[in-house]
């Protein structure tokens, strides 16, 4: 079963919350909606579910136009950021509730509930009440309840955001396994790029209600079509340098370099060069590496790696270095970037250059 959105727009008063979005989601796929808060992820999901009506455009489930159909007429299940379970029902009854509404027979209900509980490792807790469970267990109950419906479309709105860091990691590992078995269209909203990368599937990058890019996650990560997609899809944030190409030379940060190698592929004009933190190195590893020098603002140690914040006016860079570094604030530091690792976006923000080596 497929889910298609055609030029969907939603306006609330003067505010445009969704601006002309078209998406084609195939059955059995996991689709991540990636964007900051207020970028339209929740609004879009509500349109898919039928909780809100679009001001313009159509929503089509499996070839059937369901734009005006209320949520009860659509085969949809939804999981929210806040763990929402019926507080008075046991875990078993919570998971069984949509099946009871659908009036399935007892044996079938029992079979499906046990199957979902098994999948989400809730086997030993079927008799407990939600308030007796931990946050992670409550959210797993909510996910089980969404899955057991065998809905054609499962929507998850930042379901792991209220959980501990480690618990999020664990559940994130289990989700792809659960998705693979189900065969429905999964839509998962998140603000964290690393979650999108870990979940795989397809990613739709949203910014201010507009769809910036949609495609296989690895491709959107490696070849963002617009600088907005690159920025949203980076954690730590991408480093930017304003540059200009003219007369066969590249001008940036007071340096003038001959525009050969990767730069030869650019036409003349103003560009924003961008690169990821882990490509900014502290040793010159290739002959064509460009030097970016500055002073250390602060060094953050994460155990095995360090984030070095470098002031190189007017820019501020973040470099991810292997190992532990204790640079003092104010110390001069030399950093190098290999042109092969550079992205370039033109004046309109469109992708002009991307690394070719298959790395991101």
């Amino acid at each position, binding site marked *: 079963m497929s889910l298609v959105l055609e030029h969907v727009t939603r306006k609330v008063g003067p505010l445009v919350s969704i601006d002309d979005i078209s998406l084609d989601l195939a059955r059995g796929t996991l689709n991540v909606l990636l964007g*900051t*808060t207020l970028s339209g992820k929740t609004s879009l999901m509500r349109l898919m579910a039928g909780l809100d009506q679009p001001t313009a455009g159509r929503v089509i489930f499996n070839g059937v136009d369901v734009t005006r159909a209320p949520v009860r007429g659509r085969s949809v299940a939804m999981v929210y950021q806040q763990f929402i379970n019926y507080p008075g029902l046991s875990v078993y009854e919570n998971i069984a509730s949509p099946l009871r509404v659908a009036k399935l027979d007892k044996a079938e209900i029992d079979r499906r509930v046990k199957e979902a509980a098994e999948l989400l490792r809730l086997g030993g807790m079927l008799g407990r009440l939600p308030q007796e469970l*931990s*946050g992670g267990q409550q959210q797993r109950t909510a996910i089980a309840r969404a899955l057991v419906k065998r809905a054609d479309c499962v929507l998850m709105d930042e379901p792991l955001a209220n959980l*501990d*860091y*480690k*618990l999020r*990691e664990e559940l994130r*590992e289990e989700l792809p396994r659960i998705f693979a078995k189900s065969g429905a269209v999964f839509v998962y909203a998140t*603000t*964290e*790029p*690393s979650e999108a*990368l*870990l979940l*795989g599937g397809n990613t739709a990058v949203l910014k201010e209600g507009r769809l910036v890019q949609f495609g296989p996650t*690895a491709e959107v*990560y490696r070849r963002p079509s617009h600088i907005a997609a690159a*920025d*949203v899809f*980076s*954690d*730590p*944030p991408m480093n930017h340098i304003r540059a200009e190409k003219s007369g066969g030379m590249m001008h940036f940060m007071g340096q003038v370099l001959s525009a050969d190698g990767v730069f030869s592929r650019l036409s003349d004009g103003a560009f924003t060069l961008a690169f*990821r*933190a*882990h490509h900014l190195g502290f040793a010159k590893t290739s002959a064509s590496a460009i030097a970016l020098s500055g002073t250390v*603002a*602060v060094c*953050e*140690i*994460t*155990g*095995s790696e360090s*984030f070095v*914040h470098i002031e190189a006016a007017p820019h501020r860079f*973040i470099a*991810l270095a292997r190992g*532990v570094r204790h640079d003092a*604030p104010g110390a001069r530091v030399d950093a190098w970037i290999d042109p092969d690792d550079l992205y370039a976006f033109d004046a309109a923000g469109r992708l002009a250059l991307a690394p070719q*080596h*298959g*790395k*991101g």
Partner: protein
Amino acid sequence: MARITLSALAHAYRPNPSAPADYAVREATHVWENGGAYALLGPSGCGKTSLLNIISGLVTPTRGRVLFDDQDVTQLPTERRNIAQVFQFPVIYDTMSVRENLAFPLINRGLRGAAVQARVEEIARLLDLSRDLDRKARGLSADSKQKISLGRGLVRPDVAAILFDEPLTVIDPHLKWELRSKLKEIHKTFDTTMIYVTHDQTEALTFADQVVVMLEGEVVQVGTPQALFEAPDHTFVGYFIGSPGMNILPARIENGHAEIGKARLALGRDPVLPPHAKIEIGIRPEFMRPAAPGEAGLEVSCQRVEDIGRHRILRGVCDGQKLAAILPEGAAMPPEVLRMSADAAHIHVYADSRRVR
């Protein structure tokens, strides 16, 4: 600025605690040095927020004392302890402008006029709030509001310590970067004692000079981010810090080797083990590497490779145990069964979850 000492401190929320499990904070004695940046790290319910509230005075401990620079403050209420606290969500005075918000603590303490304005402007400059000084505080974004909350703590020149209770909870990921490095810069500028509670290891490790890891009310390990990473004293610390966490495998130690199932790894030492203890070895995924030809190693059947951009994570199974290894960016797909090993220095031995040196 103050040195904070916790002396035989314990706290239980129930009236008559008997078993250790009744305590939210189990007996702890700890000194937070003057001017240090500390993080309290642990999962939900580990007691870190309770400990923070005891230090700030919002909770009076069942047993033990809290000392600020040798002065016993255990019975003193919050407002007399001269601390500042930043909460999970921004706390600002809606009716006031940013300037008035920042000046509020100073005005309450009787300061007036030019001195107040100078201090407010200095703090606003430090927090990049100078542009918004005369705007109404309630119209700003969440991260600016958190900065105002922080600013109200910084503006008091004699504050003993600043306490943070998961302050980045409502902040967007890309703004978290700015705010985190800003906190670090502030710490370097002001040299105030700062205590930061979080369940996020990245926040804890990047912010703190010393991290206090807690589990179920107990302090499990205190150390620098590097020490916690390279030599975790407890398997929980190994698991909780690092993404993914440390690989923990049951093993037998014999003749300077660790035996996991049929595989052997060289240890280069013969640790003395307590009898009848559960013996495990821990190796961080960052230190797992393909075994050199002829080197003994673990047979890992590879199940999948996750690409997270800056590196790849190999997930596999060895002898029925889950295992993870970090592969560099762009690494080729490994074969179905790969032999992996690690340097002896990075293999730690644990007896009953505690490290054996």
